[in-house]
């Protein structure tokens, strides 16, 4: 797992789930498996914008870009948004 994935996992475990021990992998389906709810998606976007110093356009917040931590990291890389 790369540094971006690690940071995302950390945020989800600690801030969204409030469970630092939660067993979350980069390939777990965050939305399909109810790990992150709709409020959580919004908070995740806020976190990325805050850490990355760049806005995430509303049209980019989709089920395809936010399905797993690995996919989110890929999206950030493609948009050159660095959160680490």
């Amino acid at each position, binding site marked *: 797992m790369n540094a971006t994935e690690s940071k995302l996992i950390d945020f989800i475990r600690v801030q969204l*789930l*409030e*469970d*630092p*021990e*939660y067993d979350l992998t980069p390939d777990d*389906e965050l*939305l*399909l*498996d*109810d790990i*992150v*709810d*709709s409020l*959580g*998606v919004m908070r995740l976007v806020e976190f990325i914008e805050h850490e990355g110093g760049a806005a995430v356009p*509303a*049209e980019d*917040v*989709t*089920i395809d870009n*936010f*399905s797993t931590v690995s996919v989110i990291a890929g999206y950030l890389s493609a948009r050159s948004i660095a959160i680490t």
Partner: protein
Amino acid sequence: MRYLLWHLVDDSAARNPDAEAIRCRGESLTYGALAAASNRLAHLLAEHGVRPGDRVGILMNKRVECAVAIYGIMKAGAAYVPLDPGAPTERHAFVANDCGIRCVVTEPRKRAAVSRLHAAHPLATVVGCEIESESEGCRSMGFAALEACEAARPPAVHAMEQDLSYILYTSGSTGVPKGIMHSHRSGLAWAEVTVDAYGFDGADRISNYAPLHFDLSTLDYFSAALAGSTTVMIPEDVTKVPASLAALIAGEALTVFYTVPLALTQLATSGCLDGNDCAQLRWVLFGGEQMPPKHLAALMAALPGARFCNVYGPTETNGCTHFPIAPDHVHDAPVPIGRPYRNVEALVVDADDQPVAPGEVGELLIRAPTLMRGYWGREELNARSAFLRREFAGVPDRFHRTGDLVYALPDDNLQFVGRKDRQIKSRGCRVDLDEVEAVMLALDSVSEAAVYPVTDGDGHQLIEARAIPAAHARGGETLSESMLRSLLRRQLPPYAVPVRLDIVDDFPRTSTGKVDRVTLAREATAARAPGGD
């Protein structure tokens, strides 16, 4: 003669086999194909020991095969029992054990979840994916096994309208969920009520937003099948991203959208409707909890072509009253729950079960053919939940006690006031706060627990909790917040896990020493308000 829920699909298939019945992520089944596939599944289940009256689990994420599972199980004479795909294995195992599930219909994506369930509660048959099983007694198979089964007609099993069609498990106050049993009769009655009230027809495209274990879904499937409409499933991930949800509503040209207020609030506040043409919508139905008036007003302005309607009814009764919202409705008060549908009797009674004076608050009792048969295996609850009025000697009328407190407005619409007990709605789903407390108290390391509702800025309810550790667990080593959260998440569905959990030394108490949950709730709500802590 139409007296079983699956007759709806076969009747529609006979009338119009090429009409689209189900859609999900671009995949589609016509009524003819759905009738044939469900026949095949019914034969497969019967071959593997499923008998009339059995309970068969469904553990799937949204896909067209969910409809095949629903109708196939019923065609085998069994009742389908949806298992919440977002819930932990402990929950699945509890439900399976409680109502005696030995067979589950699933999909390859859920292989791990089904395997975990089988480890906790041995299954005899799994259809939809192969799992590894050490026990000889479990046969598992993929969907390919259906190909060899008969498609032309369902197995010849005896079934009647009062037989069970499905069981939906919901939060109970004693720490364990209870199964609400519906018959084909109550399911059909609800489909008929809604088609009558909303005028669904073959041109309608009706959303399925709710998961299968949530009773909003029964309108999505059965009312649609009765009317020959198309059911368009909304996958779980789409429900979490308002932009994707709005795009699906527009892209699939939905005409009917039935959902929970939280989803409507998100659509209203995200502004996603602006970029999507949802002009095809003619009905927006919502139920499950109260709808914040200001967001309702915003949505009605954004969708001027649609009629909005509040649908009220506990899972035990299906829907029983509704309030279609007039275009010039004034949004200054909570939306009423409205008037009974046709073929429904509503009584508002006092503590002695006598009708209250007009305008007074009382408990809402419902008599209707849409009533459940009862709670699975809960005789003492069944006896308490029914109110019998004797119109004729020896012939009782059974009413269901909703536990909801209401009063009649001057125009005869009913207004919801609150609950008699500690049940709340979290994301539209029922949670009995006593259940969450009971789960916490079951832990050795917890001495006392207090679970209370908090209202957020939009009027939606959240759950918070505090725990006092047992004497031996003080000092944070045997009980920490994250430990408690993990434990709760292992036993409760996601919407029932408190959003905030604190370990404390004591609670505010009333003068008699009881936990003052009212003060806890009030202070916590104030702390969440803008400008609060």
